């Protein structure tokens, strides 16, 4: 045996033995990577005893695209499109956090014009609604309700259309740039956005009637997959997962970044209304309530964008953009509230060491980070799955997976 990987080989042997042993008494069932209810390419190996799941072993990495390796060879600006592809359902939120981190390192985070900050918050919240609509719609499909899925996608389409109008792309926007934005909002965007809010509010009530308070849906999700608060914290869960367990923890409020401190919104938490605190229904309900809060945030942004921060002909969203993105050598961890939870980037920036002709070493500024680590919220949220799905029925496992709402692009990065 190769010495290098001895500990790895041991772990692998333990795992292989576990699967082999399970094959005699219990049954090993492969769910995924092409299973519709795993929401992407996630493979779950289930050790089952009849209908009861005894153990879940997640296998991830099918969508690994070497984000961190790419980031080590591209400049900060060039990496923004790569961050879009992490959580591809909420690209704006990803690039927002990335850009905030870079701005903080450059020391220009206080100089960003208010209009730019409000536009950023506006598009991020629109994107958050789109992401939650997918979570809710696909959750309905997992449980067996088809209509909510179609309704959610119909409403999401309006958001996609608006964001395409602003950025030129439907899902992967590359809209928020370091020091500003790609472009100002198109003329008429604010009015169109307000129309959407007015259109969408009643639709949310319809959705509540169709799914949230649906007795069949409650039967399938209440008291299922209960995630106690201490387990959630210990596993590093964040976002709706953590709030579903009853903790008011929202980085938009805690860190108060961008324009959020000036905006009034509530932080919805799970209350255990239909069953136990922290069950699937609570997590689902937190998302519904968050959509409502996002609508409130959007309205407040629009109010300000149409009044004191009105569009002016000479407004240039790229005015503050540095010609060269060369921060001082430092390391910095930025975190922000993505649609799924705490999204973090850890930057290490150093100067490039080079040798001139005489062999003397010199240090040059560089635009490329030395090391980037990304902490995807879905990554940590998914890691709690084996802990909360011991002894559940296979059908309930589907409900649990859906309620976690992970995006594999972010788990694997």
């Amino acid at each position, binding site marked *: 045996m190769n010495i*290098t990987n001895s500990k790895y080989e041991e772990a692998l042997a333990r795992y292989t033995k576990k699967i082999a042993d399970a094959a005699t008494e219990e049954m090993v069932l492969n769910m995924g990577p092409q299973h519709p209810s795993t929401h992407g390419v996630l493979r779950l190996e289930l050790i089952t005893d009849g209908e009861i799941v005894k153990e879940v072993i997640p296998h*991830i*990495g099918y969508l690994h695209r*070497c984000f961190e390796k790419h980031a080590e060879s591209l400049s900060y600006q060039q990496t923004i499109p790569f961050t879009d592809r992490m959580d591809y359902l909420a690209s704006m939120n990803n690039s927002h956090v990335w850009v905030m981190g870079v701005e903080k390192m450059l020391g220009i985070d206080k100089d960003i014009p208010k209009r730019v900050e409000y536009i950023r918050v506006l598009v991020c919240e629109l994107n958050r609604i789109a992401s939650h609509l997918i979570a809710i719609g696909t959750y309905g499909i997992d449980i067996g309700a088809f209509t909510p899925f179609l309704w959610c996608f119909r409403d999401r389409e309006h958001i996609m259309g608006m964001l395409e109008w602003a950025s030129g792309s439907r899902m992967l926007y590359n809209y928020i740039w370091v020091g500003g934005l790609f472009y100002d909002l198109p003329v008429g965007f604010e009015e169109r956005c307000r129309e959407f809010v007015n259109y969408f509010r009643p639709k949310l009530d319809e959705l509540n009637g169709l799914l949230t308070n649906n007795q069949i849906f409650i039967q399938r999700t209440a008291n299922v997959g209960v995630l106690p608060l201490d387990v959630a914290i210990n*596993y*590093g869960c964040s976002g709706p997962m953590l709030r579903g367990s009853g903790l008011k923890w929202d980085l938009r409020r805690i860190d108060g970044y961008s324009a959020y401190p000036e905006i009034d919104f509530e932080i919805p938490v799970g209350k255990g209304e239909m069953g136990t605190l922290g069950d699937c229904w609570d997590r689902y309900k937190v998302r519904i309530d968050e959509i409502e809060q996002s609508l409130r945030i959007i309205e407040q942004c629009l109010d300000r964008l149409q009044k004191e921060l009105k569009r002016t002909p000479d407004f240039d969203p790229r005015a503050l953009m540095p010609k060269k993105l060369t921060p001082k050598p430092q390391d910095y961890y930025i*975190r922000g509230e993505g649609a799924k939870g705490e999204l*973090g980037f*850890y930057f290490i920036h150093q100067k490039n060491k080079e040798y001139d002709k005489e062999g003397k070493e010199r240090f040059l500024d560089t635009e490329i980070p030395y090391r980037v680590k990304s902490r995807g919220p879905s990554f940590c949220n998914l890691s709690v799955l084996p802990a909360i799905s011991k002894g559940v029925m296979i059908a309930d496992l589907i409900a649990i997976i859906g309620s976690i709402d992970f995006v594999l692009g972010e788990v694997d990065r």
Partner: protein
Amino acid sequence: MSFEEIKTMIVNKFGEEIIVGEETTGLQPALLVDPNRIVDVCLELKNNPQTYFDFLSCLSGVDYGTEENRFGVVYHLASIPYQTRLTLKISKENSRDENDLPSFPSISSVYQAADWHEREAYEMTGIYFDGHPDLRRLLLPDDWEGFPLRKDYTTVDKYYKGIKID
């Protein structure tokens, strides 16, 4: 508790030699801790009612370059009750020999969140975590050779299982 208070608290509890150094020049101050005592420090920070660092935000394995030959792990802790943050760093020199990987204690017994993060750090930077319950690869295929996020990593062969790599 401020950064200095936390430092004093750890020194009082474990002795001077546990803090190897500190970085206070950047935006986020960091404590450099003796690698062998990281589990004790984390456990104390998590359970002490004055700090309650109960949330592991991020864990990153870092290769500090081919000239320094140093490997490290960076922990970003957050306290939910106090809304504070703390960065801990541990590092060790290593010869980069593939038969002698750097090894650090695993903190997955303190924070379950470290489980997957450490598996990722192992496969990407080639750092062992002693006492980790299940140190298999996470994102890469089981037969992957080399550690991609090391600074001296190069793709040796042009073929992967008969498929040409451009």
